């Protein structure tokens, strides 16, 4: 039979699975079943943190079936990402290509994994939700996440979500949402991986305040000279915390960090990242109805 759009789509999907599959590896770093990983650089594997239960003696099986030893190069339990370093000169040839166009709702996508030495495994679905920020089951905030309606087979954690052109849309894991599969978008995952390669870990900022979201009346918004509907009313400051040392007090309404408006808790969480840890950071507050900026040296959680 001659080719038609169905055959072309089918071939394209198989091509995408093959292309991304060549950059998808088996990661054997725990006692139970192996999981998957993505070739992030010739000698680096990006995978899920929760499947790495030992730091040494990790075995990676690459696309051509070769087994390579690896060790942990960096991990961020909060985002459930880890980077492994291959102990082989030259590394592997095929490196995964992160997408340049972020996932779109309704887009078809392949979930890939290499849970066994016998070859790549795949399932097909569509991007069914893009959301965030959410609090993960690991006590951190994930700015954005992708969900699909495809089947995640055992051992798929650490593997890629793949667009029809074979580029990687994100990293799949069952470790962030009580065992349900979610995908960490590629731009976030690659950014975290960059930091892990450089520093071995991700820093999370800490102020030492308790707060609740409150409405900012229009008069105070005028004082702020911007439209900002909510802020964080500080209802408690821990002794000797970065906040207390910097001079934040109960009753302040926190409205910005480093010039970025903060409307909700999750935005504060996201903003207090490695970029501000250890640095004197301007915190915008409303105190007695007047906007003020108070410099706080952000601590590390």
């Amino acid at each position, binding site marked *: 039979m001659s080719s*038609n759009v169905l*055959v072309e789509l*089918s071939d394209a999907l*198989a091509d995408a699975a093959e292309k991304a599959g060549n950059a998808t590896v088996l990661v054997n770093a725990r006692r139970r079943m192996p999981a998957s990983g993505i070739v992030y650089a010739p000698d680096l594997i990006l995978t899920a943190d929760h499947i790495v239960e030992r730091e040494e003696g990790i075995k990676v099986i690459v696309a051509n079936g070769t087994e390579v030893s690896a060790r942990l190069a960096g991990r961020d339990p909060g985002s459930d990402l880890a980077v492994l370093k291959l102990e082989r000169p030259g590394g592997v040839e095929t490196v995964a290509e992160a997408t340049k166009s972020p996932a779109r709702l309704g887009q078809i996508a392949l979930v890939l994994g290499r849970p066994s030495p*016998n070859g790549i*495994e795949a399932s097909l679905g569509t991007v069914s939700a893009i959301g965030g920020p959410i609090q993960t089951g690991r006590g951190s905030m994930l700015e954005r996440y992708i969900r699909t309606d495809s089947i995640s087979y055992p051992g798929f954690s650490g593997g890629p979500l793949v667009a029809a052109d074979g580029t990687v849309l994100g990293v799949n894991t069952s470790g962030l949402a009580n065992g349900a599969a979610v995908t960490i978008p590629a731009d976030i995952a690659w950014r975290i991986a960059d930091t892990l390669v450089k520093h071995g870990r991700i820093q999370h900022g800490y102020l030492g305040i308790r707060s609740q979201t409150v409405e900012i009346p229009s008069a105070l918004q005028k004082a702020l000279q911007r439209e900002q509907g909510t802020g964080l009313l500080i209802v408690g400051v821990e002794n000797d915390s970065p906040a207390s040392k910097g001079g934040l007090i109960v009753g302040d309404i926190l409205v910005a960090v480093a010039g970025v408006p903060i409307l909700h808790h999750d935005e504060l969480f996201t903003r207090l990242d490695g970029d501000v840890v250890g640095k004197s950071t301007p915190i915008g507050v409303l105190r007695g109805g007047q906007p003020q900026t108070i410099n706080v040296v952000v601590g590390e959680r």
Partner: protein
Amino acid sequence: MNFNGTFTQVIDELVQRVMPALVIVRGHRFGAGAGIVWDANGLILTNNHVVGRRTPIVILQNDHEYESRLLARDPDVDLALLSIDATDLTPLQPAPVPPRVGEMVFAFGHPWGQRNTVTRGIVSALVSAQNRRGDTLPVVRSDAPLAPGNSGGPLVNAKGEVVGVNAMIIGGDQSVSIAASVAKDFVTKVLARKKSEERTPVDML
């Protein structure tokens, strides 16, 4: 380009082409499986476990019912070959090459007694399953939903060629299909043996 129209149309064409080769195989008192018209002159391929102790009844798409003859059955590959007295049937062709992971597949069958269903998926993995004898058997795993009643039906590719015979039970895994190569070998062996039997007097066996 009217992509949607074209796409729907080619899927419809695929279903129209494959469906005539899908049959019902009633081999047990309760429940039924599916079967594949394997040649124009009445060869029907199905799962061994679909064929019980009774003479299986084969029901074609035109609702004609046939008492079949059991030519051969092999529990180790979970395949059985039946023959019915019919001609001019529309058979399916096995795919000449193994499928690729990621390619689209369609499962045809009668899950839970629901007649003539089509479920869509992709090839998830090409793996080996172990049968009771300890032999390994190439199977095609897909993410197409299968249920009892899909057994014995075809898993076809985008061209409508058979890439597997659906069988849920091998190795306890869900949604697996016996690779078309196994089915092809099985049929070839059965037909070769039948031919030699026809030439050989029965008392010499």
